[in-house]
């Protein structure tokens, strides 16, 4: 008996040759314990070594293997073939990003945005190392823990129609990470970070479609982070209008 197979329709794009991406069909063995990434590795090893895509950890931690699977942003290391049986399975590069080659997208814009929100602990005066760590209670950790689970896989950007239509939007993951540091009891950078989050291309560009939180593989809920930043920003604006000392 011949082995059962499943069809993958994989987007191919060769820079300098192709004007736009096109789909190429591959047949791979259907194994219940295989994920889409296994199928792509099989194609690269056995059928076409020129197929390009990113991956690393294969366990949902590194955030490199994000692609569109049947039109939905997914970590391909966590997208089982059995959930798409009998196929065919459409595998495309993450939506809304420039395509470099095949399934590889450009990270440049996301990296710039991530840096812009300063996702690190800012202190007014750094404590000398000899004085030890900045301590935190479990309750203080709980405040931001959910938002610190982001693995920068960018699935949320691929799910965000606002980012697709207008890429100046800072976007879900970067705002969620900025918000995460704003909530951190060890951080003193709120006054530096909050104006960046609440500028026009920040939280106010978001129309709350909410799909970023649906596709997030880590349960970060970036949509909640954005809306809560909006509330904080609006509250501060009101206070600055009402109080002579600007609510500071």
């Amino acid at each position, binding site marked *: 008996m011949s082995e059962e197979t499943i069809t993958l329709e994989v987007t191919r794009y060769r*820079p300098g040759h192709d004007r736009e991406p096109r789909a190429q069909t591959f047949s791979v063995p259907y194994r219940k314990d295989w994920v889409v990434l296994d199928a792509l590795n099989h194609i690269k090893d056995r059928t076409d070594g020129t197929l390009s895509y990113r991956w690393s950890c294969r366990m949902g931690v590194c955030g490199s293997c994000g692609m569109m699977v049947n039109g939905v942003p997914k970590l391909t290391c966590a997208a089982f073939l059995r959930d798409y049986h009998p196929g065919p399975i459409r595998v495309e590069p993450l939506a809304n990003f420039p395509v470099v080659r095949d399934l590889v997208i450009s990270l*440049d814009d996301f990296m710039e945005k991530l840096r812009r929100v300063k996702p690190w602990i800012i202190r007014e005066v750094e404590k000398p190392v000899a004085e030890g760590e900045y301590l935190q209670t479990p309750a203080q950790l709980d405040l931001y823990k959910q938002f610190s689970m982001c693995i920068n896989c960018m699935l949320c950007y691929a799910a965000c129609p606002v980012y697709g239509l207008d*890429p100046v939007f800072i976007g879900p993951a970067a705002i969620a990470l900025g918000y995460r540091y704003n909530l951190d009891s060890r951080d003193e950078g709120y006054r530096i970070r909050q104006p960046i989050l609440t500028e026009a291309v920040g939280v106010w560009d978001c129309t709350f479609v909410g799909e970023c939180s649906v596709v997030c593989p880590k349960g970060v809920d970036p949509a909640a982070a954005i809306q809560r930043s909006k509330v904080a920003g609006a509250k501060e604006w009101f206070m600055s209008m009402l109080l002579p000392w600007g609510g500071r």
Partner: protein
Amino acid sequence: MTTVPRRDRPGFYYPKPPATWWLRRPNYVLFMLRELSSVFIAIFLVLLLVQIHQLSQGPAAYAAFVERLRSPGWIAFHVVALAFALYHSITWFNLTAVVQVVRLGERQVPPRLVAAANFLLWGVVSLVILFFFLLGG
């Protein structure tokens, strides 16, 4: 500082979402419906303002206006507007629960409870309005 992402790298393919992007996923369609609901609610509010204005024009003018609202077209509009208003309100209260974190001491009140409190308040206010309406009618 706003940085506009580059869209001119040679060899890169820059995708553009089609005008029908909102048909791609059920959640996008629901989002667009929520946005569209504002149109019906706005029309209803304008109608309400006109109705109040008619009230100031005397009983005859008001009665004629109310009679016009009894046409099948306007009834159909009100049914659709009510459906949109309900859809908007229900999704709004559900989202409020996610956005508004309520804390009791160190513990966060479950979002479902926050939503339930919103719905309860909505129900009570609606009942009070209904009570006055029945009292007046």
